[in-house]
């Protein structure tokens, strides 16, 4: 019953609006105001354009300043300082153009609105002006490109030799990480060796794999270069560490990488943000299916000594999954047993 009443009400309102519309348009015809060009509508629209500009520029500055801390993420990596700085330099330059160009647009619209007595200026071109506003943007953009190239090359350069290596693998719908262990070398892998337990498809005929370990979270040391070796198992994913300004796609069949230097430990960031529960998070930014929005992995940045302690306390994956010792070739069994601390004869 209630729904019917609402329905009737809506119909009634629509009918009234329709009638008003009809009356209005007939009145216009009767008055002949539809033929007038310097009309009230023209003035109202001109004024509204100016008003729109003023209100929105105020709103833009107000929100940008008032909410600054909410929409800017604290930065926790060395190259992040560079990208952030470049972002703000670009914001400053484009911001000026944004305000001036929009202001000119709306102001001209208001200032030069139609007048019966007025006449537009016949002004088809001005080559000097045109050259100026071609060359000036070109110069500014060249500077921005040069600046950008420098930063981009720096970020994408070869990772330093001493980088801590972490393998990050994306799959539907989570991340897995693997560390090279004490030998500092990640064991080889082959996607055909993947099974529900050996999720990385680690190849145990490679002796570098014996001490690899697979923790639940990523740990990285503060102040040291970290090299993420990124891959995907099923579809595209993308490693995204918002606080570190790190983003790189994970592609099945094509390993990618990204290296960076964390500058603030988790603990330091907890103090900076005033949030005792703060954690760095790794998210996915390439659409990968149903659970795309929930591919969360916590990343912990430790002080270097804590990191060492954590690293050394980790148990090799093979130790946790001794059945996979059988995959180790005969002649390496001995070594595997020593590395993992399991007596393979048992």
């Amino acid at each position: 019953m209630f729904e019917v009443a609402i329905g009737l009400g809506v119909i009634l309102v629509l009918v009234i609006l329709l009638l008003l519309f009809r009356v209005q348009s007939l009145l216009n015809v009767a008055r002949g105001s539809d033929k007038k060009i310097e009309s009230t509508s023209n003035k109202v629209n001109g004024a509204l354009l100016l008003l729109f500009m003023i209100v929105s520029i105020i709103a833009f500055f107000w929100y940008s300043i008032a909410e600054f801390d909410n929409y800017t993420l604290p930065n926790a990596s060395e190259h992040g300082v560079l990208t952030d700085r470049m972002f703000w330099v670009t914001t400053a330059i484009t911001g000026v153009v944004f305000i001036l160009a929009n202001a000119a647009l709306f102001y001209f619209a208001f200032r030069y609105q139609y007048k019966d007595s007025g006449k537009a200026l016949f002004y088809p071109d001005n080559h000097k002006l045109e050259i100026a506003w071609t060359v000036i943007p070109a110069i500014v953009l060249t500077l921005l490109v040069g600046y950008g190239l420098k930063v981009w090359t720096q970020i994408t350069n070869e990772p330093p030799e001493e980088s801590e290596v972490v393998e990050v693998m994306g799959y539907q719908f989570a991340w897995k990480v693997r560390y090279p262990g004490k030998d500092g070398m990640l064991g080889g892998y082959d996607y055909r060796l993947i099974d529900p337990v050996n999720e990385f498809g680690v190849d145990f005929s490679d002796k570098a794999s014996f001490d690899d370990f697979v923790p639940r979270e990523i740990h990285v040391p503060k102040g040291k270069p970290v090299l993420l070796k990124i891959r995907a198992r099923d579809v595209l994913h993308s490693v995204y560490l918002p606080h570190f300004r790190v983003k790189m796609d994970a592609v099945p069949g094509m390993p990618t990488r990204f290296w960076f230097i964390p500058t603030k430990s988790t603990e330091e960031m907890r103090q900076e943000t005033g949030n005792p529960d703060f954690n760095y998070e790794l998210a996915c930014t390439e659409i990968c299916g149903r659970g795309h929005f929930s591919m969360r992995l916590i990343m912990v940045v430790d002080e270097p000594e804590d990191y060492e302690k954590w690293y050394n306390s980790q148990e090799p994956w093979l130790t946790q999954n001794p059945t996979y010792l059988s995959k180790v070739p005969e002649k390496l069994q001995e070594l595997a047993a020593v590395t993992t601390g399991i007596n393979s004869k048992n």
Partner: protein
Amino acid sequence: MDQHIAETTGYHDAEWHAHGHHKESFVTKYIFSQDHKTIAKQFLITGIFWAFIGGILSSIFRLQLGYPDMSLEWLRPLLGGWITDAGKLDPEFYLALVTMHGTIMVFFVLTAGLSGTFANFLIPLQIGARDMASGFLNMLSYWFFFASSVVMLCSFFLKTGPAAGGWVVYPPLSALPQALQGSQGGMTLWLIAMALFIVSSLLGGINYITTIINLRTRGMTFARLPLTIWALFLTAVIGVLSFPVLFSAALLLIFDRSFGTSFYLSDIYIGGEALSNQGGSAILFQHLFWFLGHPEVYIVMLPGLGITSEIISTNSRKPIFGYRAMIGSLLGIAVLSFIVWAHHMFVTGMNPFLGSIFMILTLIIAVPSAVKVFNYLATMWKGNIRFTPGMLFSIGLVSFFISGGLTGIFLGNAAIDIPLHDTYFVVAHFHLVMASASFFGMLAGVYHWFPKMFGRMMDEKLGYIHFWLTFIGVYLVFFPMHYIGIAGFPRRYYSWTTFDVFNSFTDLNTFVTVAALITMVAQFLFLFNFFYSIFRGRVAPPNPWQSNTLEWTTPLHPGHGNWPGAIPTVYRWPYDYSKPGAEEDYIPQHIPYSQTMESNLPHENDLIALEKEEEDIVIDESSESH
């Protein structure tokens, strides 16, 4: 040279009477019509249909983003099983919604609906031709589009839903049915629909190019073409060169999906098994896709820029500033659009050196774009501006083009792109510069040329209300997304609550949703105005905007062949507004200089001697087959 072409391939005025003999049935007149004006209207109305579908899809996913806790049980009659038992939107259907919203808006509305409508409608009318070079191909172009639409629409009714891997359909997600429900039947239909769409687009594009090159009337040199035609011409050229590449990308994807090839697939373990595909490259698809995908942005954008050039000049009562620079920048954009595609791929693992190259090329394209904006501003400066709804939407376009274009300078810069890539900053950027700007171009065009299409005026007041609600609405929807993007929120996320870092801005997201819903509702004003005015609008005067271009010299309801008598000869460029000395503030293109002695510039007086020659050119219309 141009004259020569017109001479040998144009029409013969004397043959005009032959066109009167057609007996047209309802079917040949309104359905399988070969008349460019009817085909234009078919494209327009289909485009409007799709625009509403696309808009409603976005309203549904905005509800999810703005009101994550709201029960959507009331949508069950419409969405059925896509509403979970808990009354929530299914996460996978959310992805289907964003995917189909993108596909529909980019291809069906802003490519077919925009180019299809205005290229078909304006090219013959503004260059002075009886019709398109091939009316039959033109008809096929619409009907392929129609078939494509039907197939795409059908995919909504599959049990597994429509394609859901994003409008860019990156494999392996789109190639593996086990990765995503939408990659089952939905993706197959998506690919079929797109293949049909590409056929339609190519048939149309070839026709537009041929017509513009060959069928211009006497005196209509390239240097006298209205900028709308220049824009539509270059749009068609871009489309003809880039759509085949998308076709090949789609074809290879079809092979990978159905015939076991490995163009895009390698080293995949999914659903508990290792697939046998090896050696393919997922990145290859992205290169092929964006080789179309980036030019596509300009396919969408250029017609809007052309339309607004025309409308801003007409309603400022001023010549477009820097006509040649406008053409030059269109050409520059068209050429550069082909060599910037990989700026969508800075963080895909592509070689960083390639990233550097594409960054340089990308930022170069900002120069011609900037020139266009400055020229619009200079056109309005010291004008005598009439705020018709078309003009208001054009001003809106320029504002969006400025605001959205500038953020392109961030994203085109590889280093800044690292944090911003695939965040809401990108969503804000392209919705302003590409989507909303072209939408406004389309609406401006509809308001401006409605009188020529239907012989009646749309209601101006409703147009104003529509403009203000939409204009403010668009800014309120997309401007806040910049902040959300700078804060790092990724695109295509069903919900934010999983992450602490993204678990903020709930108020702002609600605000955006409310703005989006109001903007959506405002579009019904347009829908009403449009259809009401077709039947009941005020009868239009012959040249309601006092414009210079040729279409306004046709009768109120131009018949098949457009001009009942001879096609007018063109003597001047289309932007002689407010010329000093002239009595009126406009001098249409078909008025010879010999009749405007009082306003001619010195070099124009020299052209009078040539006018006689031009008029004497006999163009042969008998080669035209009807």
